[in-house]
């Protein structure tokens, strides 16, 4: 975005570091820079300011820590390992492991996981270590159980494959039930909107052309010092969704900026605080560091549609200013919006980093290699097609009418050996459903006609829905069969849990 004349170098990183050493560097937080550019213009701001500090504090699932436990005597080649019952990845050397933020505890489930262990380690708490092995000539030990603290570890390196999303689409929910997602609690019928990201304080939004960011950039990470070690996974700069891979020494970090978290009925994660200094090398960079919430746009996505994130319908384009205002209009209704990431903590991080630089404790580095500006994100290629309802449903559906006699229908069910009977009107539109159990009960209490006993609020599915999604729906409603209908509610098939398991045996055993 550097316009003509704005790319001319004003100062180098070496010159900035010289000033930092002398205690002369002019450092502003991103919020302060926005105000300065507003009041005095970008030219003045670019001349006066050496560094702008950014910050973000949000749940960053792609985080984790490399640990080295040290050798016991006799030694063990750990093949499986747990910290506080949370499994640690052991596919590397004997006493090295990687603990991911999203692993669930084997005993506490959603309540506790990798993110919490990381927080406990950083806080200096004792953590239970358990490990198993098959035993070898050189590593005879097969079992170990002990408690450790972070001080007992040789290394604890936070290494996060994807942090610091430049921006992130907001979430809402069109369905008629509450959804519990990684975007938090989403109320039915567009009941609320949640969003993530620091917007005008976000590091990548402050240098969207990645002029100063790349491998080797020194940053604030979790309250300690860290480094950008490359672009993050799913880095998508062409769409404005850049990400970072970062690392830092966990032993220097603080639990104020690394917080284990649980998203209700979704899973666990780690809130990570990241702050990045942006050197004002030219006017173009001064301008981008002054970008405001109003200038940063995302879509509001409907999480009611269980598709790939990029295929979820976009309801509306909004700016971070809209989202932060607390309400966004959807379908003529004011929908409350709130963030999942803490703006307050993001401000704090940008202020702490500013202080470090002003006190001469933190020098800037030039990247050895800049972040890619081209890469794109591909979806997972699935060779084996996801089965759809249409491939498994039965189309020779036996149906009944509301005024059919219970007795006759019961006979029909027994003869055909089926359990679910959709009830339709003359136009074959679905009006109800009865199961063999309903019929048995109806006979016992002497009801005559189907309409007296049928369930009128029927759970239905469409033929192009994925079997996994439908299976979840059936489990949720605790039902074993659903009519398949078209857009006009005509019955075109029926699908039972039996059909699903029979058809999928051999291919996949679990659904």
């Amino acid at each position, binding site marked *: 975005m550097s316009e003509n004349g704005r790319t001319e170098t004003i100062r180098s990183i070496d010159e900035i570091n010289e000033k930092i050493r002398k205690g002369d560097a002019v450092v502003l937080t991103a919020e302060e820079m926005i105000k300065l550019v507003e009041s005095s213009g970008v030219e003045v701001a670019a001349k006066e300011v050496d560094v702008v500090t950014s910050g973000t504090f949000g749940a960053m699932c792609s985080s984790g820590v490399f640990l080295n436990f040290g050798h016991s005597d006799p030694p063990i080649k750990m093949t499986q390992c747990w910290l506080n019952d949370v499994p640690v990845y052991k596919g590397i050397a004997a006493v090295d492991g990687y603990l991911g933020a999203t692993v669930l505890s084997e005993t506490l489930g959603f309540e506790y996981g990798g993110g919490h262990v990381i927080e406990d380690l950083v806080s200096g708490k004792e953590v239970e270590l358990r490990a198993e092995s098959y035993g070898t000539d050189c590593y005879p030990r097969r079992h170990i159980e002990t408690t450790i603290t972070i001080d007992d570890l040789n290394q604890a390196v936070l290494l996060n494959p994807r942090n610091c999303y430049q921006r992130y689409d907001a979430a809402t929910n069109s369905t008629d039930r509450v959804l519990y997602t990684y975007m*938090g*609690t989403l109320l039915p019928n567009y009941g609320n*909107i*949640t969003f993530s990201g620091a917007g005008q304080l976000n590091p990548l939004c402050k240098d969207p052309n990645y002029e100063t960011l790349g491998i080797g950039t020194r940053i604030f990470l979790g309250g300690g010092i860290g480094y950008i070690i490359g672009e993050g996974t799913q880095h998508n700069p062409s769409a404005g969704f850049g990400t970072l891979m970062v690392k830092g020494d966990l032993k220097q970090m603080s639990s104020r900026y690394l*917080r284990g978290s649980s998203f209700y009925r979704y899973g666990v994660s780690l*809130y990570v605080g990241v702050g990045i200094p942006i050197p004002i090398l030219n006017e173009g960079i001064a301008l981008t560091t002054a970008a405001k919430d109003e200038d940063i746009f995302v879509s509001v996505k409907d999480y009611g549609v269980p598709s790939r994130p990029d295929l979820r319908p976009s309801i509306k384009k909004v700016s971070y200013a809209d989202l932060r205002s*607390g309400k966004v209009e959807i379908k003529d209704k004011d929908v409350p*919006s*709130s963030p999942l990431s803490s703006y307050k903590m993001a*401000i704090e991080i940008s202020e702490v980093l500013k202080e470090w630089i002003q006190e001469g404790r933190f020098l800037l580095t030039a990247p050895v290699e800049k972040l890619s500006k081209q890469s794109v994100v591909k979806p997972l290629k699935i060779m084996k097609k996801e089965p759809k309802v249409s491939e498994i449903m039965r189309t020779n559906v036996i149906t009944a009418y509301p005024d059919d006699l219970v007795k006759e229908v019961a006979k029909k069910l027994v003869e055909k050996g089926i359990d679910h009977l959709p009830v339709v009107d003359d136009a074959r539109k679905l009006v109800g459903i009865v199961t063999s159990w309903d019929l048995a009960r109806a006979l016992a209490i002497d009801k005559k006609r189907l309409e007296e006993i049928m369930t009128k609020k029927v759970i239905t599915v469409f033929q192009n829905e994925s079997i996994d999604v439908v299976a979840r729906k059936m489990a949720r409603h605790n039902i074993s069969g659903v009519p398949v209908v078209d857009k006009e509610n005509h019955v075109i098939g029926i699908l039972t849990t039996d059909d699903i398991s029979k058809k999928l045996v051999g291919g996949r055993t679990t659904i």
Partner: protein
Amino acid sequence: MIVRLTYSPEVVEKPVLAEIILKTGVPINILEAKVNAQKGELVVSIPAKEKTLEQILRFFKEAGVTAQKFTQILQIDFNKCTSCGACISPCPTRALRFTPDWTLEFDEEKCVACRTCVNACPVKAITVP
């Protein structure tokens, strides 16, 4: 304001609540009810302030119903809270909001004790005592 009403055996069958709603025009909302022939206990939310609220509480007293204010419906541990905001938009009554400096703020008067926020908080900073 959330209030716990305890009905003594003498008044448990009288429509005290309905009468007070009619008299004051305040739509008192029942959140929880435990009533049997001997004793009744209701937890209600009274959407009123100051004078009207005092008046309603007086009416209950006169009718022989003990009204006890819930002084603490939710406990928010501000040492844990990061002011992320994840609890704000799921709250049906707007009882949770940000101060101008983006700190979480809780308006107890508006809270109806639905507990949606308890589950929505990623760091378990909100509990029901």
